[in-house]
């Protein structure tokens, strides 16, 4: 009986970083889009685009056809 502890630690680390990054970017986007300064809107949109990119990476990982 062997438990792949290294894999498990890796899974925890990767999920923590990925979930935290996605939530932080999206939250920051919501924070910035709600304001009047002219620079806020484009930055927020850019953040949402990055979130969409992360989601696409997720889809890429889900579909075995791609890799």
């Amino acid at each position, binding site marked *: *009986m062997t438990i*792949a502890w290294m894999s498990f630690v890796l899974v925890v680390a990767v*999920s923590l970083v990925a979930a*935290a990054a996605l939530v932080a970017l999206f939250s920051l986007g919501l924070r910035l889009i709600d304001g009047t300064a002219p620079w806020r809107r484009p930055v927020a949109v850019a953040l949402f685009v990055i*979130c969409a990119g992360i*989601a696409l990476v997720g889809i890429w990982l*889900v*579909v075995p056809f791609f890799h």
Partner: protein
Amino acid sequence: MDPTLLVVLVIGLALLFDFTNGFHDTANAMATPIATGALRPRVAVALAAALNLVGAFLSTEVARTISGGLIKEGAGGVQITPTLILAGLIGAIVWNLLTWLLGLPSSSSHALFGGLIGAAIVGAGTGAIDGGVLVSKILIPAVLAPLTAMGVAFLATKIAYAITRKRQRDNFKIGQIFTSSLVSLAHGTNDAQKTMGVITLTLIAAKALEPDATPPIWVIVACAVAIAAGTYTGGWRIIKTIGRDLTDIEPAQGFAAEASTAATILASSHLGFALSTTQVASGSVIGTGLGRVGAKVKWGTAGKIAIGWLITIPAAGIVAALAALLAGIGFWGIIADVVLALVVIAGIYLWSRRNSVTHRTFHQPQPGQFVRPKKRKAASR
């Protein structure tokens, strides 16, 4: 008995299992958007069903062994016969329906493994089970999955609430739709192919397919449709447990929880440490309840769910073992098995009608929408 009839019965039960798998797991992806009102209940289950259908076609690579090494298959172990699979499926289906009746989210794969273990023990004794694999692939991950998801969702929730202000948080509903869809798609690619594997291996065992064959197209279509239909049916009791009874969920929490579920599942399936989707999803909801100041986690509900997980494998195993004993009689034993299983299924369905939980339970009127006032009973003096 006539091998063709047996194979037909196994395929029928496998598709029924696929259906229960679908409605048991709708909640994993869609309980949080339904709870926060990000998606209307019917729209949510339709979206999940469509993504499960698509997901099933995207991933048709089936496992080479039915139990992933849990049962010592082939030479030196137990021969996995269609009869054994039949008994295992009956155990899994009955347990899935029973946990649904109680509104408990439990892992469908664990139910299937439990059923197969029970049937294999009756057929070949406890020596047929690889205890090491049972502990390292099932029991340890079952403890780690919810704890990992809890930690991840806790952190994600803290981040979401630290960055945003109160009036901005309603827009998390838009993000929720995407994260939940991702979880749904992942479920479709993962779970439909389990049933495809069961049917394909049964056909191989019956010599209707070459060894190492890929699933025929009709198997793929049937499994995809069964899991999508099951998902659309919704398993509203489990949605209620995860979305309402564990903790109160706000849009920011729903987004954080589902992002954590997606991240944890994808990481686990690609980095060689498989975790159960159901257990990850439930853990995420608890984690997000702990992460928001003012939210309370109802530990009584969480405890009931944990007990459900604990007894899933033995319970499905006992049902399957009884079915295997009966099937040992021969032709009439197998027929009796199937008839009894159908009677139990019908019984559970009828019992569930006593207090039905449907999509109407989750009806949330939009602000400004006209709500038909409830009829009052004639005023009594």
